[in-house]
């Protein structure tokens, strides 16, 4: 058996399947749009799941292609005279193809891991569940493909199956509306696009998806080894059972669609003072943030009532959950760039200052950004300029305000900045708060 498995690994479509999945999957997660998995392991696991949209149909087609070998080689007559039962005969090639899709998918994971290994720290168990469901989806696909290729041994089976698989994945959301829970259970790519930094997958959802996919896989296997119509009819049982068990386990609440990992949001802090804390999922960036954050705190110290700590702003929305407002804490937005390092690291000093002089997100009042920017750069003693600022108008406005501030006597300007800081701790910053009536 081991020797025959070795032969099948070398001579079946296993190696080609593995390489195809690995190469296409890797290209997709890196180059299709942008890198969505820079935040960490969960984001990588979910991004891999998203591109099952293509890998799942490919695995179906690979199975169907491989299964046609017996027909293509015209060995039916010879093999019908051999003692080993069909189920045993197909076992080595099934194993080889299963290993191929598993290895292909895990290679995509490794390729992604190489990119984020330097900064990704937080590895919750749910990551393994998300990867496990992805693997199960590919195993189910290749087994179903093998069964289809065996029952319909035609050259068009493989491409047709790929199209049907791709279309099914795309049509599930529409077909199951408004029962999103059902669509989410059936489709392994549901809710996997652009995962947020604190996103996770509910364990019960993964369990339900696993049950459904396992049922699908067993059905494929039964169809593959079936010798007669009885087993083929019986093959609907596992998939029906998987569907029923999955539906029993699957949560109905809409909340599970965007589950938040509260442990990922918990703060991890620098060891010495002044304290700089990032969410657990971004803990690997602490070294990059601590230096500039402390520099900003030093600059801020000149302002009365200055904060003494910097925390990551871990706000999540719908439902809105904000970190508590504390007078001695600046809440800093932390974004991870395409390179898995801090996005716009050069702006961190200015950003800490700006956030100290703005309303926190929890205020629900977002105006006064140009005022905060002007004040921040007045404290830094240079003209406003931000690498990562998308709103160039706000920067231009800040430049004008900054010039106005610079024209004022030093203690008058310091008083204005102090007043702005005080307003920021009370959600009272508005447009024009900095210079008020003295606007140039």
């Amino acid at each position, binding site marked *: 058996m081991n020797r025959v498995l070795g032969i099948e690994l070398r001579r079946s479509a296993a190696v080609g399947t593995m390489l195809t999945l690995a190469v296409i999957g890797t290209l997709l997660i890196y180059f299709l749009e942008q890198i969505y998995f820079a935040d960490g392991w969960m984001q990588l696991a979910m991004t891999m799941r998203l591109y099952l949209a293509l890998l799942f149909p490919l695995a179906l087609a690979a199975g169907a292609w491989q299964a046609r070998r017996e027909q293509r*080689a015209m*060995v039916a*007559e010879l093999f019908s005279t051999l003692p080993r039962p069909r189920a045993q005969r197909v076992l080595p090639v099934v194993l080889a193809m299963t290993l191929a899709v598993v290895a292909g998918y895990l290679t995509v994971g490794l390729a992604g891991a190489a990119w984020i290994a330097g900064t990704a720290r937080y590895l919750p168990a749910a990551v393994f569940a998300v990867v496990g469901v992805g693997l199960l989806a590919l195993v189910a696909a290749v087994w179903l493909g093998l069964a289809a290729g065996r029952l319909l041994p035609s050259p068009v089976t493989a491409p047709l199956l790929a199209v049907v698989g791709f279309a099914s994945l795309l049509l599930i959301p529409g077909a199951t509306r408004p029962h999103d829970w059902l669509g989410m259970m059936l489709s392994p790519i549901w809710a996997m696009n652009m995962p947020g930094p604190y996103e996770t997958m509910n364990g019960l959802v993964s369990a339900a998806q696993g049950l459904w996919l396992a049922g699908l896989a067993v059905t494929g296997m039964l169809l593959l080894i079936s010798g007669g119509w009885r087993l083929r009819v019986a093959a609907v049982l596992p998939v029906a059972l998987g569907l029923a068990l999955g539906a029993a386990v699957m949560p109905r609440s809409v909340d599970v669609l965007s589950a938040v990992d509260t442990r990922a949001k918990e703060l991890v802090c620098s060891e010495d003072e002044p304290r700089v804390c990032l969410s657990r999922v971004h803990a690997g960036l602490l070294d990059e943030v601590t230096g500039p954050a402390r520099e900003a705190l030093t600059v801020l110290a000149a302002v009365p009532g200055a904060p003494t700590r910097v925390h990551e702003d871990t706000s999540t929305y719908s439902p809105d959950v904000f970190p508590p407002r504390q007078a001695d804490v600046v809440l800093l937005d932390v974004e991870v760039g395409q390179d898995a390092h801090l996005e716009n690291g050069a702006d961190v000093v200015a950003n800490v200052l700006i956030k100290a002089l703005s309303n926190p997100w929890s205020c629900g009042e977002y105006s006064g950004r140009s005022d905060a920017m002007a004040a921040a750069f007045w404290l830094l003693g240079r003209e406003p300029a931000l690498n990562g600022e998308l709103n160039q108008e706000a920067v231009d406005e800040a430049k004008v305000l900054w010039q106005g501030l610079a024209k004022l006597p030093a203690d008058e300007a310091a008083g204005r900045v102090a007043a702005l800081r005080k307003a920021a701790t009370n959600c009272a910053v508005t447009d024009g708060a900095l210079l008020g009536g003295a606007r140039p």
Partner: protein
Amino acid sequence: MRIVSAAETAPPTYHWAVHAEGLQVRAGRRYLAVDGLDLALGPGVHGLLGPNGAGKTTLMRALATALAPAGGTLTLLGEQIGARSDLRGIRRDLGYLPQQFGFYPRFTVREFVEYMAWLKEMPGQGVPSAVQRAIDRVGLTAKADARMKTLSGGMLRRAGIAQAIVNDPAVLLLDEPTVGLDPEQRLDFRELLRDLGTDSCVLVSTHLVEDVVAACTDVVMMNEGRVLFQGTTADLIAHGGPGDAGDSPAERGYSALLRRHRAEAAR
């Protein structure tokens, strides 16, 4: 060298390796290509001759358990063969080269023969040496690690024989094994047949009367689904006269038998 199990050395419990009485086998849905055939074969090399359409290949398929008998009785190695019989034990002792030999082109000769040995449920530890021996016996040693798709027609035929004999079958069925072999290879093949026939029942279907005379202990001639002659090669030759068609005594015997049979059938 290999270990011989007690089961292998035990005397057979059957009289004939192949025994058919009134055997009927369908080719396709309705046509009885073998119809009322009586045949008894023991150890030795038996040549199966007959014109195209005589039912040779259908008979071979039935003996190989690829087709179930539609009527009559068929006994292989003492076991009755029917649509509902458990054929697993019998099949371990069969070797079969179909007329259309299917193979996996990406496999090497060694891999394919090994794969077939596994499908024939040979015990694992003996497989590599049995595979090597089978490949050596058909003279493919130098090509053992070549892919099947790179082989010439004659080499493929020999690879097909290698897979058929790898399990030392008690009943070996070769359907047109000499197609594609050059004269030298055919001489080697006859040698191999004589060797195989010493303790197995070998049935070789062919159009080449010369091969039968050279390598077979006896001859089975078929026409229209029945056996019309079974005897030694000397008997076959004795049926021929100088007036019969053919370039050799055996060919003249063959055409004389066929002509006489057709004349009787026409009457």
